[in-house]
């Protein structure tokens, strides 16, 4: 174990905001995730869920798109920020940490981008 001497006397507003985001998203994703799980695995199954089902049954209603957008963004931000904190705990070399966070942000943007494109890009009324 090493020690860095006196701690820097510098406030970090970002970390305080990130902590509040974790608490808020943590509370929100409990109902979001469990309702999602129930719909996908209890009331339906892998045999009935396909692209057509999603478009016709779910995304025909704007409400479900908003629900899925909330799930995507809150669960995603919660998960990625959690991963960032884990990296901060275990990766002690600053350059390596920065590289990993940049890689993580790129992955995050791809995941969020694809999800958002699917949510917004597909037409609201059933196409089939």
């Amino acid at each position: 174990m090493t020690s860095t001497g006196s701690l820097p006397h510098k406030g970090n507003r970002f970390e305080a905001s990130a902590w509040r985001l974790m608490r808020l998203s943590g509370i929100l994703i409990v109902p979001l995730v469990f309702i999602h799980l129930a719909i996908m695995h209890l009331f339906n199954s892998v045999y009935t869920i396909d692209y057509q089902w999603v478009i016709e049954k779910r995304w025909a209603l704007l409400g479900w798109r908003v629900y899925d957008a909330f799930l995507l963004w809150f669960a995603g931000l919660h998960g990625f920020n959690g991963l960032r904190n884990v990296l901060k705990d275990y990766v002690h070399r600053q350059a390596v940490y920065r590289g990993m966070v940049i890689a993580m942000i790129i992955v995050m943007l791809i995941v969020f981008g694809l999800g958002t494109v699917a949510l917004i890009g597909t037409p609201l009324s059933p196409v089939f």
Partner: protein
Amino acid sequence: MDINLRIRRFNPEVDQKPYWAEYDLKEVQPVDRVLDLLEYVKGYLDGTLGLRRSCGHGICGSDTMRINGRNLLACKVLVKDLVRGDRGTIQVEPILGLPVIKDLIVDMEPFFEHYRAVMPYFINDEPAPERERLQSPAQRARFDESTKCILCAACTTSCPSFWANGTYIGPAAIIQAHRFIFDSRDTAGDRRLAILASEQGIWRCRTIFNCTLACPREIPVTQLIAEVKKEIK
């Protein structure tokens, strides 16, 4: 009772790496403290055993050890709380996350360095009134829990965030900051909050609750840490 006492030992002048030394103790009383067993070993079986102790009554906080996998004060835990029946094993290790000097003695300096970083002393540059600085019972109660800390390091060295990252300021230092941040007579709360909001400050806390379980003074450590987090805007 018969106790098989396993002690994690390491003498850097002799040993290549730490090892388990075992001592079979006979006629141990259920109300003996683990500290009594260790002192018996040191006094009668092997005088080279290194350990810290001072008051022996759970006040000075110098004999914190990892006993059967939990951070406890050796002077507060009784054999009957660890072993049921006529025989059993008790395992004693140095606390984790701090460098071992010898056997059960660790280097506490990194811990105290973090303690000093939060300015754990009363600060008020305003001229002192003629009598004392008055405080209502309610104002005093606001920080009562954090006054109970004895700096034994049981909380900080039970914290997985601290194990992974020794530069994390740790729960004990946050509790010491809490003691003054919520003291109505102190005027340096903002400075302490700024220190805690730094890179290796309070945000490395993951609300794991090990600190609360480890505290021999039953301070609700995790709750007090959350109170300080809420103060950081």
